[in-house]
């Protein structure tokens, strides 16, 4: 859909004078008037076509026996062979289990915390204190995943990290925070460190929208601050909470790939291998790159992720009348 297709035939402008009798000339007139908008739209549209739609077209290799020599279109069709290979592979349930546990754990642990943070911040009177807390706690959001994982590796390293030095000094035993036992906790709680402050923003905005007179009236009636938070603030942000919970559920499988990949090592593979990293490994880290198989795994994930997003969106619309589509 580039500007060239949309450009009206020469002379189309004359039609402007005749009043439109049916939708057709009206459309032509609109195109004649605004083809320049399509010219403006052309660069982003070409980008989207090549780098976003192109791969969608290339996804056909999930159903083909892809060979580099034959190319994407030339390779022979293989039907559902590779999807079947994934679903029946011995890795399948491990990978699914790891993805689900990691994401559900993250959702359950990290969903309530920004709400609590926002409620507490909102109760603070001093706006200077509030602003400083916000400025500092937003900061990790802007740090790269490599740096966050780097900080984890350095500070939590079993032999020389400050955390384990402290544990040993207190008479404990050094813990391998990236080992099989701790991997999930480290992943989720470092995520809390990085995203909590920033995730509280939306709740703070919702809290700012609550009528202060409700609080004044409750105060006159002698309600304590805890009661006011519970009976005014929490119900006030309930729709936002529900919407975000549902939307988070919808985007569950799509997050965290880069961080998991960075935190992965040969020792924790049994808990850290998720769908995305498995697909990546099959394609790029094995001796023979299996592009078709890897694409089929990616497609499997995209389909489930889209299904969950649509389901979540439908739920959000039913429950709180907010939705994306």
């Amino acid at each position: 859909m580039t500007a060239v297709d949309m450009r009206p035939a020469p002379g189309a402008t004359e039609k402007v004078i005749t009043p439109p009798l049916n939708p057709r000339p009206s459309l032509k007139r609109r195109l004649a008037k605004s083809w320049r908008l399509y010219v403006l739209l052309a660069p982003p549209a070409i980008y989207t076509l090549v780098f976003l739609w192109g791969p969608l077209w290339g996804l056909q290799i999930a159903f083909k026996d892809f060979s580099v020599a034959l190319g994407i279109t030339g390779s022979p069709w293989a039907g559902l062979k590779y999807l079947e290979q994934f679903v029946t592979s011995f890795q399948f349930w491990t990978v699914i289990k790891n993805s689900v546990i990691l994401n559900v754990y993250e959702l359950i642990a990290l969903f309530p915390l920004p709400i609590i943070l926002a409620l507490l911040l909102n109760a603070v009177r001093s706006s200077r204190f509030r602003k400083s807390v916000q400025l500092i706690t937003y900061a990790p959001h802007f740090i790269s995943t490599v740096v966050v994982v780097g900080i984890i590796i350095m500070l939590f390293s079993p032999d020389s990290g400050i955390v384990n030095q402290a544990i040993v000094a207190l008479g404990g035993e050094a813990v391998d925070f990236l080992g099989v036992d701790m991997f999930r906790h480290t992943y989720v709680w470092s995520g809390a460190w990085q995203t909590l402050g920033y995730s509280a923003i939306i709740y703070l905005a919702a809290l700012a929208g609550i009528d202060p007179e409700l609080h004044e009236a409750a105060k006159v009636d002698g309600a304590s601050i805890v009661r006011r938070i519970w009976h005014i603030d929490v119900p006030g942000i309930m729709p936002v909470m529900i919407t975000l919970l549902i939307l988070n559920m919808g985007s569950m499988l799509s997050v965290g790939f880069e961080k998991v990949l960075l935190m992965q090592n040969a020792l924790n593979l049994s808990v850290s291998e998720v769908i995305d990293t498995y697909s990546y490994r099959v394609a790029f880290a094995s001796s023979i790159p299996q592009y078709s198989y890897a694409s089929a795994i990616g497609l499997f994930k995209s389909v489930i992720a889209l299904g969950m997003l649509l389901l979540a969106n439908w739920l959000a619309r039913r429950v709180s009348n907010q939705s994306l589509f």
Partner: protein
Amino acid sequence: MFMVTTYILLVGFTLSVLYPLIFVLSASVSSGDALSSGEVRLWPVGFNGGAYQAILDSPQLVRGFLNSVLYTVGGATIGTGLTLLAGYAMSRDDLPFRRWVMFFFLIPTLFSAGIIPTYMIVNSLGLLDSVWAVLLPGAMNVFNMIITMTFYRMSVPKEMLEATQVDGATDFTFFFKIALPLSKPIIAVNLLFYGIAQWNSWFNALLYLSNADLFPLQLVLREILTQSEVNPADIGGNVAELLRRKELFDKLKYALIVVAMIPPMIAYPFVQKHFVKGALIGSLK
């Protein structure tokens, strides 16, 4: 009583966010001895800037830094350009087939093809192992486009467009002469957003680059971090030398972490306010 608990919790949380950042900074400028013996707890012990000198002396690290600067400037420019064009055109209600164009942008964002097909497209365009492989895939973010579109809707009044159209101005004239000069805040937001994203990114580079001369700093940092400690075989099993190297290596890692995280840390307070607005629109994705 409740307020006391609130303040304690908030201060506690803020300090726990701050602590690792300060520790990394302190560790990177402390003496190697103090670091390995665990004396560095919060503030630097035995101030020593050797690790930063080592970074400056390493051609690989300096090149990584310069590459990152180049990718950041390039990515910010390309991303912002595409976003402004799309955002403006999509903000116009009179754009024919607007709804369909919106689907055209949204569908591949909601249903992504995944890493491998994207890799094959980049490969078939002959972009592998070039600067463009880092800059182009993921150059534009649809949520930024939506934020930009909303900005134009709200801050460029329709009457202005109608008035200039009466004077015979085309959409080009209006966009370049009137809408763009009004877009300074949204341009700044986009530049910083794409700039920070590009500075922080490493995966495209890992996927598409094999020439180490093109690696951005984050990828170099990742390689150094995942390298297991200094190999004893390299220095003939000399224990004292090994320890010294390990101390220096640890310090170097800390210093690199600092270098890699400083630019976004400097940039973000300036646009914090706008990011917040963006987050509000974006979080209702």
